[in-house]
């Protein structure tokens, strides 16, 4: 019964139904991730050739990227969901800071066991995210505004717990923080392992569950997603809940990494997370990107930090400058790619 159009394209209608190869390559959504991966590789090789004699080639230096940036990776994974859905979450850094305070206080001053503190702080973060998602959806307020309010709220709550930083000398915490998972060529911290597990879970959710595909659809076109009969509200609220959860988890990892709570921990870290997501090739307008790209985004940012450390004489502010330059470059690339696709 398929006779009209299955026959080779009539001369009047040339290749209309199969996009050209070059168009498909340029339009390929994996391209930005590949660009970031290539950038990481190039930077790594450059580092190798420059600091070879200082042990840059040591496999542990590479693994340290995960140890030193595990919390950022977790936060950035949460941010990836939000940005993919076309939203933004500015409360990430504050929730991380608050979680360090909350856990430090609960462990140190209240004396709860770590095993209880972990689920409590995760639940608090997730609930905060849920509330923000609920307000965003039900009152149709810009995510930017709502999460900005969240940013102030959680930062303020830090000070409600204590105005001073709380050092942790709990033995459970320090033994967990010092635990290392041997890998043959080196070792990873618990934090790094957790971050990688979160990454893998996020990849699975985004690509193999209906929820994940809904996140892409809503980011692609919210109105269409609604008309296609997708549950808009539930998905959006879930996305912000997940981001809150990831922020709290990142806060836990940060607390392990630093072994203290401080009302000023992780100020502005939401911007690092967003930068990692964007450098990783996710479109700020939503609907396009990969969580694997976010991994490379975090690694690139981490690598900049280590290179600057190896350099020795450079101020750490150069990290910010390099991040800014990269961010500009990647946003320009995105811009070119999206306009190219339209024409």
């Amino acid at each position, binding site marked *: 019964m398929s006779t009209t159009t299955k026959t080779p394209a009539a001369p009047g209608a040339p290749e209309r139904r199969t996009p050209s190869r070059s168009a498909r390559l340029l339009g390929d959504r994996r391209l930005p991730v590949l660009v970031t991966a290539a950038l990481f590789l190039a930077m790594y090789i450059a580092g190798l050739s420059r600091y070879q004699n200082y042990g840059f080639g040591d496999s542990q230096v590479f693994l340290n990227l995960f140890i030193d940036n595990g919390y950022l990776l977790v936060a950035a994974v949460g941010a990836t969901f939000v940005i993919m859905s076309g939203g933004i979450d500015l409360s990430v850094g504050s929730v991380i800071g608050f979680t360090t305070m909350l856990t430090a206080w609960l462990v140190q001053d209240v004396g709860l066991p770590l095993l209880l503190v972990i689920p409590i702080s995760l639940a608090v973060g997730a609930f905060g995210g849920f509330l923000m998602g609920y307000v965003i959806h039900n009152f149709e307020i810009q995510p930017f505004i709502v999460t900005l309010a969240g940013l102030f709220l959680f930062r303020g709550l830090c000070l409600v717990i204590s105005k001073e930083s709380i050092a942790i000398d709990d033995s459970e915490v320090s033994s967990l923080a010092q635990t290392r998972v041997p890998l043959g060529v080196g070792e990873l911290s618990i934090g790094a392992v957790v971050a990688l597990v979160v990454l893998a879970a996020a990849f699975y959710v985004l690509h193999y569950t209906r929820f994940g595909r809904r996140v892409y659809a809503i980011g692609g076109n919210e109105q269409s997603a*609604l008309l296609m009969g997708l549950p808009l509200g539930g998905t959006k609220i879930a996305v912000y809940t997940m981001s809150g959860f990831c922020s709290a988890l990142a806060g836990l990892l940060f607390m392990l990494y630093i072994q203290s709570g401080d009302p000023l921990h992780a100020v502005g870290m939401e911007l690092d997370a967003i930068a990692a997501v964007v450098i990783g090739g996710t479109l700020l307008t939503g609907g396009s990107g990969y969580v694997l790209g976010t991994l490379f985004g975090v690694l690139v940012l981490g690598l900049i930090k280590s290179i600057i450390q190896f350099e020795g004489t450079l101020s750490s502010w150069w990290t910010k400058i390099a991040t800014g330059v990269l961010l500009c470059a990647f946003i320009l690339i995105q811009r070119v790619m999206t306009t190219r696709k339209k024409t």
Partner: protein
Amino acid sequence: MAEPQPVLEMTGIVKEFPGVRALSGVDFRLFPGEIHALMGENGAGKSTLIKVLTGVYSLDGGTITLDGKAVRIGSPLQAQQAGISTVYQEVNLCPNLSVAENIFIGREPTRAGRIQWKRMRKEAAELVDRLGLDIDVTAPLSSYPLAVQQLVAIVRSVGTGDSDGEGSGTKVLVLDEPTSSLDRDEVLELFRLMRQLRDEGVAILFVSHFLDQIYEICDRMTVLRNGTLVGEHMVRDLDQVGLIELMIGKALDQLEELHDHQLHADVGESLMKAEGLGRTGGIAPFDLDIKKGEVVGLAGLLGSGRTELARLLFGADQPDSGTVTIGGKQVSMSAPNDAIGAGVAFCSENRKTEGLVPDLTVRENIILALQAARGWTRPIPTAQRDELVAKYIKALDIRPANPEARVGQLSGGNQQKVLLARWLITQPKLLILDEPTRGIDIGAKTEIQKLVVSLSEDGMSVLYIAAELEEVLRLSHTIGVLRDRKLVAQLTNGPEITPSKILETIASGEHQ
């Protein structure tokens, strides 16, 4: 044949938007195994009725019965679960996802919560194949042109409820103007598919502004006008002229009145010439020659392409084909600025959204176009500006005659005059008026029409678009007749041209 029970029955449907009553007490019913046309001019409320039915808009009154049971449909998701699949007028897919995903999203085949991509692609390919289409389902939707995207939307709606045994299968298929961007072959494909589904017992609600398509495929039709039900008819019982009368709400002989010609005769040489000008999805290529001092009227149903034609002449839309010459010189009409530079002015039909700035004063609104033409770096001297504004307020009798009044507070007719003044001040050679008299009172209407006559006597050319045929007829030297986005005839006005003659031309699509 005794009438079976309707699968869908809507009674007394009311829907209000701020300031607009889009539906007032509409009844509608749909039988299994029929293709039912929902007819009405643009803005009659067709899309709104569909969105109320499918839970996009909430109901302000009335009931919906599905299979004899009263239902409340609160969201598009619930509509789908109740067996109503919809292709909305605006393409409603996600361009960032693949074709297969667009077909299946929300009901992807899963095992233990995990999406089975292979199976999904295979089933999508089969579905596309079964419908006789040749589309690579793994490609992103955005890599296809709009027409193919439209087809994918249709495939999705047909496939709804297919997998996993979820949903109850499609009982009602709603297609809101699905053919507007399809070419003839694609329309035929769609029709074949629609017949196939009808024969399987699906009830199909079909909206199209192409009358021929209605007569080709539909069994029954419901006609709406201004949000009210006009009637339900079997298609075979109502001819096209009768249908148009129902849609615009006037009997032919009523239109015959008010018909006197006092058109001035000194039409000059050619001013603007369009040759083969056209735009896919907008209007088919047309030739049009507007002479100096001539009034060219455009007649046709709402949605027949009148505005689209005007927008092409003004450079507001990009043509795909054809050329425009003004005063013998070819001009590229790639932006309104080109047209303005060549002496073309355009009064949009949406004076609120596209024309006037309601929060600025009358003076500021009037001066806007002139200032734009001079460039923003060269302000108009205050004295000259005030003089000009005063002159046009007086000439057009804008009330209140206060240049400092906020435009938003003026009545519709006076707003229209402000918009006119804005363009007249730039002294255009060709003035395009799109529905200048819509929604204004009868007094202001007559004044605007008088103004058009006097402008053309002074040598200005006017392209005049109006819904009311007698208005077009009274003012125009030449009448372009549009139908289904095509300029089907150009009639030279004369005693033998009557509203019924024009209506016949619209209905038959040719000039007898």
